[in-house]
């Protein structure tokens, strides 16, 4: 177990290093010069040069990468070009907002997805199964702004049940914040339902075909007991990983939903940073998403290992 954990941690550090390199280089290819972006097009060339020097963007690429990386290791994400202050408070606020939205979406979609998947598995190959599988897959490929617009039209504009923006405003009550987040959460639920249902379905089918399920049925246990005690418990293992791999998407991939609903999460922050050529903010935001994803995947691996004794034995060599 310790070896396994160490190995996973080592791989995680390596992935994070590659990720930082990639994010840094991607930030560099943004066209235009940050000083130009800050001072405007009419700025004197000498002023642009001076600001470039002050920002440190006239140094060689490697030096800048190393100093950026050094700062990251000390928890310093850098200074925003656009706002001229540390990016950290912006990232922190956006991350908290993103987590709120992601949490609500997860709370709704996980039980729904598992239920859908198990039902499909019990009726495998029949109409219900095909309907759940194909609908789930289609929904997960329909862009979020398409489903988002449909729910805005129906629940926000026609029925007027819920607010159509996600931000409840400063100091709003928890209940009001919750109400504002329901509509934005629906497109996310629709997107994720297909993935989770598909994993739960595959896991359940595997378990239903296993010897121990057959034994349980043959020794006369009622179907309900077989399902609850033998099937569900094991079939849900793969679902843990799918949930982990979706956190990266939910924390930062929501550019579209956050734009549509005017919500200040990480996706929105990255979008604005890219549009305003705020390289430092962009790199910090993208890196945070990567870190969230990598850590979530690690947690899922460890959880799976703990829950599945067979994997645990393999790791104790």
């Amino acid at each position, binding site marked *: 177990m310790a070896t*396994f954990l160490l190995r996973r941690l080592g*791989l995680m550090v390596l*992935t994070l290093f*590659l*990720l930082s390199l*990639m994010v840094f280089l*991607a930030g560099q*290819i*943004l*066209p235009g010069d940050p000083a130009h972006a800050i001072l405007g097009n009419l700025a004197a060339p000498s002023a642009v040069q001076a600001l470039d020097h002050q920002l440190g963007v006239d140094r060689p690429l490697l030096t800048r990468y190393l100093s950026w990386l050094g700062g990251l290791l000390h928890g310093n994400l850098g200074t925003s070009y656009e706002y001229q202050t540390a990016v950290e408070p912006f990232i922190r606020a956006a991350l908290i907002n993103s987590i709120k939205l992601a949490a609500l979406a997860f709370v709704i979609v996980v039980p729904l997805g598992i239920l859908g998947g198990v039902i499909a598995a019990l009726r495998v190959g029949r109409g219900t199964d*095909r309907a759940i*599988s*194909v609908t789930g*897959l*289609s929904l*997960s*490929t*329909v*862009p979020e*702004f*398409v489903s988002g*617009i*449909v729910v805005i*039209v129906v629940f926000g*504009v026609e029925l007027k049940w819920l607010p159509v923006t996600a931000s409840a405003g400063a100091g709003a009550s928890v209940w009001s914040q919750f109400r504002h987040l329901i509509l934005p959460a629906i497109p996310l639920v629709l997107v*994720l339902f*297909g*993935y989770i249902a*598909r*994993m739960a379905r*595959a*896991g359940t089918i595997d378990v239903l075909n296993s010897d121990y399920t057959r034994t349980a049925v043959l020794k006369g246990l009622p179907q309900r007991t077989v399902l609850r005690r033998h099937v569900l418990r094991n079939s849900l293992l*793969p679902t843990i*990983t*799918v949930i982990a*791999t*979706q956190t*990266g*998407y939910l924390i930062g*991939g929501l*550019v*579209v939903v956050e*734009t*549509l609903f005017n919500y200040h999460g990480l996706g929105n922050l990255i*979008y604005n940073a*890219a*549009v305003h050529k705020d390289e430092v903010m962009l790199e910090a935001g*993208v890196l945070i*998403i*990567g870190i969230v*994803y*990598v850590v979530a995947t690690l947690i899922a*691996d460890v959880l*799976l*290992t703990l829950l599945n004794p*067979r*994997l645990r034995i*393999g*790791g104790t*060599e």
Partner: protein
Amino acid sequence: MSGAVPQPTEPVVPAPVDPVASLDRTGGYLGPTGAAAVAAAGRATPARWRLLLRRTTFWVGAGILLFWVVCAIFGYLFAPYSPLTQNLLLANIGPSSAHWFGTDPLGRDVLSRVITGARYILIITPLATILGTILGTALGLAMGYLGGAFDAVAGRLVEAVLALPFVIIAFMFVVALGPSVPVITVVIGLVFTPLIARTVRTAVLVERHMDYVPAARLLGENSSRVMFAEILPNVLPAILVEFTVRLGYAVFAVATLSFLGFGIQPPTPDWGADIAANYIGLPAGYWWQVLFPALAIASLVTGVILIADAIEQVLAS
């Protein structure tokens, strides 16, 4: 050597991790389990293709796709109005017998814009997917067959790319390079490459242990011949399924980029861009300007997914 018990060189990697890891929003629908199943069972014989023609889902999907292809090619000929002609006196008119889908804020006919808006999305999507499939297949074959250090290094890189939601990566590069049809096509193709490579790699790992591979090597075939002439034909069914699913995601990606303002540029008719331009009119009740392009995207995605599902069902049966 100490004896019969082979020392595991690495801890048993949790089996479900890999299949599920490819199921995220950033990743594919067809996990390596699916790819492996298709690769193992599927030999694309003419008999199997005849099975495809008997599936209702295939016909429905093909019908939807054909409809949009006709619109993309001949749309300008049979659209009731010019998609570009403005008539401010007829702005924001709801659906009527003269304008079935109403008019937009510039008085342009929404139905005509929906019909002609199919063009660019249907040019970019297949080209990008073909590019990603070719590159991803080459990379996946090399990773799966060569293994060793190459697989380890490429695997880490793929992992680092997958830590970010693909919309974020595509978005960063398109912002940097400027939105144009070639840029969008190449960026989406490159973003798909690691995703497809992972599926192909898994399918190749299954094939590598078949007897025909060492047989080919004993006949003196070199690595590239074994990879492309021996293994490739046998993993083609898995690649085909991956291709069709990926096509659905390419529609998603193009539409999303357009919605964010970094896809097809106005005034060229385009579903995503038209939605972005008009969704501020939703609270005023102008739902038709947004809902019809949204339904167009949803129907195209659904059509592609129905075809993908039918092919997978046939190959895995």
